[in-house]
């Protein structure tokens, strides 16, 4: 009895391996678009991919969420079906990455700016309504803040928001934000922190004298537990905020948009983060999102040109397009036209001589 069961197990597993071996070697070309990159662009790229896949005869593109750096690394590894056609990025490509691309034969890369993403400082609905200036943000979150005299820097002593600015509530500073590996963090530091930092005259003056020091002062976030690095899962941050009304969170506008009954965005420099305020530029903390395409792959990978056309169409990224429903802030009409034009002409980025 036991022996028979053993034999049947062996026969079954052998048959299974035969089927697997046969299939594993089946050769077929790649007939879908392959996209990698930033987890911030992922929600937008996937919507376009799905609409494109369903609306055309082509297969739905595959979109991998790898982070901008990992995505560009894969993207720049070479030309051919094994490498991605498109890399999403929440920051512009670096010259060193372009150089790496070029050295691997990826000579012509087309940059496509797709729109803007606002970065909000939000807290639970149950929390207090709050209006911050960028200077408040800087003073609350920087590692070192100006001391008494000009030129003095002291370890950030502020414990509550009231310590920072007497008009703010006496509530413990507790901010959940992205880790240093994140493009969101990078943009937040550059736009909000540095923006606040500049308002202090002697630091602003430092910019011309000692640029390195200026950036070190403005860009370093405190590490004493008031700023909590909370990972890239923005939904979790929203839920953690809901559970903890005294904490603030830093994340993308689309999550605020979708969770408007749980969290609210703090006004920054007097402007509340709304779709229109970000679109017209009056909300100060927003950053562009990009994707990059290999010119050599266009017209060779089935569907790639169609995907580009779909992404740059008005019904996708236009003011009333489906991407704006998902929280992508569209570019002004003129800029959209210019980018769409560049894409259809396949104008590659210039590699700067260095």
């Amino acid at each position: 009895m036991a022996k028979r069961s053993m034999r049947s197990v062996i026969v079954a597993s052998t048959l299974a391996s035969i089927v697997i071996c046969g299939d594993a070697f089946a050769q077929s070309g790649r007939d879908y678009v392959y996209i990698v990159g930033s987890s911030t662009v992922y929600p937008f790229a996937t919507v376009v991919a799905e609409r494109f896949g369903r609306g055309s005869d082509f297969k739905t593109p595959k979109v991998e969420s790898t982070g901008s750096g990992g995505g560009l690394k894969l993207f720049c590894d070479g030309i051919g079906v094994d490498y991605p056609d498109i890399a999403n990025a929440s920051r512009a490509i670096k010259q060193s990455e372009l150089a790496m691309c070029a050295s691997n034969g990826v000579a012509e890369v087309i940059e496509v700016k797709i729109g803007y993403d606002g970065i909000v400082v939000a807290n639970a609905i149950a929390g207090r309504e709050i209006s911050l200036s960028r200077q408040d943000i800087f003073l609350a979150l920087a590692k070192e803040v100006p001391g008494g005299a000009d030129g003095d820097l002291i370890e950030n002593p502020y414990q509550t928001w009231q310590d920072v600015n007497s008009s703010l509530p006496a509530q413990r500073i507790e901010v959940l934000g992205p880790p240093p590996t994140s493009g969101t963090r990078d943009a937040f530091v550059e736009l909000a922190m540095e923006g606040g930092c500049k308002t202090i005259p002697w630091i602003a003056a430092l910019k011309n004298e000692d640029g390195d020091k200026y950036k070190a002062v403005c860009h370093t976030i405190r590490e004493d537990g008031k700023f909590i690095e909370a990972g890239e899962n923005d939904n979790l941050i929203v839920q953690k905020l809901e559970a903890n009304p005294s904490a603030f969170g830093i994340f993308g506008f689309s999550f605020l948009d979708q969770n408007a009954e749980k969290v609210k965005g703090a006004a920054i420099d007097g402007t509340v983060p709304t779709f229109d305020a970000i679109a017209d530029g009056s909300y100060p903390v927003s950053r562009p999102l990009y994707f990059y395409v290999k010119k050599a792959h266009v017209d060779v990978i089935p569907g790639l040109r169609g995907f580009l056309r779909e992404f740059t169409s008005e019904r996708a990224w236009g003011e009333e397009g489906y991407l704006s429903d998902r929280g992508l802030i569209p570019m002004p009409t003129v800029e959209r036209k210019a980018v769409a034009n560049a894409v259809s002409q396949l104008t590659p980025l210039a590699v700067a001589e260095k």
Partner: protein
Amino acid sequence: MQITTLTLIIAAMAAGAFYFGRERSLSVASGPSRMQTLHSLPGYYGYYTAIWALLPAMGLLLAWNLIEPRVIVGLIVQGLPDAEQSMSPGELNLLINNIRNLANGDIVSGEVGTVLQDAAARYLEYANTGRWMLAVLTIGLATLCASLAWRRITPKFRARNHVERVISGLLIAASSIAILTTIGIVMSVLFEAIRFFREVPLSEFLFGLNWSPQTAIRADQVGSSGSFGAVPLFTGTLLITGIAMFIAVPVGLMTAIYLAEYSSARIRTITKPILEILAGIPTVVYGFFAALTVAPVVRRAGESMGFEVASESALAAGLVMGIMIIPLVSSLSDDAINSVPRAMRDGALALGSTRSETMTKVILPAALPGIVGGILLAVSRAIGETMIVVMAAGLSANLTANPLEAVTTVTVQIVTLLVGDQEFDSAKTLAAFALGLMLFLITLGLNVLGIYVVRKYREEYD
């Protein structure tokens, strides 16, 4: 699926070879009644022929499949006009992809020129020829080898020894895969780790008290501190592991004792598998539970008692991880307790000790090596746990022993460093590999320790 058919044909041929080999052995022994003149049982002659039918043909099939695509691509490229031949390898690769898509009837991108159509036709032709050649060759080889083997069958032929040698070769090959895996793991993290240590000195990594990989994401930024002292990561890991073990060891051990010693057989058969579900729940799921259900409860409870609790406290992650590990501790302790000979237990009971006394004074000391081994395994599972801490524990590298603060662990850092937005070849990304290597070395150390403990203190009763 063509290859599947071929494999099935070869398998059927092997089955046939088995039959003929067996028959042949019986006939050379002149009938089943005179089977004892054979060296081996008739089945072994069958297996021997079957092995010769199967192995060479399968080897050929495998090799062919690895080489064939390359050969076909080479032939296609040779047949292309000069203009296409002078393309870069990457572009050529794309062109071939297009040809393949065209040949397979999938959608093709761009215009289909005569060159492409021509190449696709040739591709199909080559693939077809290749398939026929392969079929003829493998079936031929199988027939040839099997018939050669078949002819070797005589009553004196030591078929069993041959078959057993092949089988023991296969067994050795299977057990060496574990070694290969280890080599693979070391190799895949070592090189990047070495590159990291070229940029960051080993001493700073091992003894630095400050982990803050805030180096610049873009070249025009000046990074802030950017220090890579891994001590806070390891203390954070240790803290969370400690909390987890603080839950899992007593609860797991007591559960094992209860189920082994006190509970009725029915309760045992029901409870044990229920508890084992705990170990099977995906860690992603635990992670969400820890972050969304347990962490707020811990925070509220802490604050009502007047403590300051971070929303991503080590406590929440540790608690949930502890619960996840309970069945691991309990089932391994259960095994250790059950392997203590009954005589010892009965002896203690006969001398009048209560059950709990028997347990704590006699059985547990005897089972200790096994329990310690199980706990060490649980510790290494806790250290290596990723998703729970990714979701619940946050990323702040604090050097603290306070379970109410946020800490981070080695595995969390590996994930965030590898899927971040920073440039890929920066010290930040490389640090992930260095951390992976350290993690591997630590679990290795724990295991060697565990084996040492078990061996040194194991009491041999049987």
